[in-house]
């Protein structure tokens, strides 16, 4: 396996929810260290695309490979793959009955079988990094949305993943908390983390993305570097979308 090979490759991916064709022949590859931001109107299939990459959403056709290996079917191999792909959800999904620190430590200890002392140290430094170390002993419900989402990022990082998937990470946040989460994501992007980010945050896309992917109606309509995409979108669909969101 060479390092120049893309980390994530989707080829001709199709996905149906009943009669609904939510992903239509989507092909996309993400290089190591690349930050790909997926934008598009609601219902365009961007969340489904993101969730397909770690098979939280099984696909109906096509192929997805991660790090040179096709996505395995449900079982041990899939669990191992998921442990290498961090995921951050719109609704945070912190384990409600565990403290912040336990949330971050659980994966490495239970999934990887790492020693608790070493994990605790790493977890604390990750919490330090996202600015939540002082709340380590609290429960998720005691934190604000922005804080919870930063913990969720720390939880994903604790597994030392090869890539991070973000499924609309700031959509459930109060406006004043969006910045603190985007700051963490931007710093991860600078450090060379491979990221697929589904978001409506155009500022983040401009600042941190290597590539912007525009989806509409289950199709990948166009992709380009952010400066190019925002300055001169090629498709009518993208022009229409940008005109609606950028005029406000």
């Amino acid at each position: 396996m060479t390092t120049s090979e893309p980390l994530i490759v989707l080829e001709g991916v199709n996905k149906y929810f009943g009669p609904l064709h939510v992903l239509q022949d989507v092909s996309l590859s993400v290089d190591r260290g690349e930050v790909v931001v997926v934008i598009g109107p609601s219902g365009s299939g961007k969340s489904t695309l993101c969730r397909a990459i770690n098979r939280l959403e099984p696909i109906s056709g096509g192929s997805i490979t991660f790090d040179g290996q096709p996505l395995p079917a449900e079982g041990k191999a899939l669990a191992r793959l998921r442990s290498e792909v961090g995921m951050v959800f719109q609704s945070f999904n912190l384990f409600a009955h565990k403290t912040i620190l336990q949330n971050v430590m659980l994966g490495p200890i239970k999934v990887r079988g790492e020693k608790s002392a070493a994990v605790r140290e790493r977890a604390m430094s990750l919490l330090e990094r996202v600015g939540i170390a002082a709340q380590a002993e609290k429960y998720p419900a005691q934190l604000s949305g922005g804080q919870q989402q930063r913990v969720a990022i720390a939880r994903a990082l604790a597994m030392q993943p090869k890539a991070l998937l973000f499924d609309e990470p700031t959509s459930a946040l109060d406006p004043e908390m969006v910045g603190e989460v985007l700051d963490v994501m931007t710093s991860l992007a600078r450090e060379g983390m491979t990221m697929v980010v589904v978001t409506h945050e155009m500022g983040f896309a401009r600042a941190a993305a290597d590539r912007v992917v525009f989806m509409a109606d289950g199709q990948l309509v166009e992709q380009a570097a952010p400066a190019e995409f925002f300055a001169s979108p090629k498709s009518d669909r993208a022009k229409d979308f940008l005109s609606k969101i950028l005029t406000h």
Partner: protein
Amino acid sequence: MDVFSDSANIDTYVTGFLWILKLTAAATVGALVLGVLLAGMRVSPIPVLRGFGTAWVNTFRNTPLTLIVFFCYFGLYSALSLELSDDIDTNNYWLGVIGLSVYTAAFVCEAIRSGINTVPVGQAEAARAIGMSFIQTLTLIILPQAGRAVVAPLGSIFIALAKNATIVGTIGLMESSSAMKELINANGDAVFPIFFVFAGTFAIFLIPTGYAFGWLANRLAVKR
């Protein structure tokens, strides 16, 4: 209250309730373990296990407990010669524990399963996303939250279990209801005192139990 000044009668009364206590304790453990296992089966991705769990619940939830306890005696013990102890009382006690456990497990299973439904889907997704197996997701994330959500209904089930334990009297164990019947047979003039003492004893133990479960439910509730 002359009945209860006779030490032999007191002994009958105490022994009767000690059996109820032991039956309830053992069957609570049995029903809880079985019920959690069954709930796990009913939400598992393996069709055979799901079918087994469903069949168990449908069978035991819809069969009168008296029939189940009779079956334990006449079926397991008499016909299949399952002997759990040389002592006849101890033997009947364990047969009763089996009957009570398999019956109550069906209700525990359904309570836990309704608790599982209160846990947001995102909790399981987050667990799977960090690489947990189905068993890990279930035991580390889902069941602890589901269990806390159903402490109060589980309390009701175990209170019902304590009262249901009197049915084991039908296979010859001198538990409280049999003890009561014996005392009434021997003291026909004191039916009401005897009845109220026995019923009152259940109430004195079970009413606080109900409050204890209510308190525990509040204390353990998962904040979201």
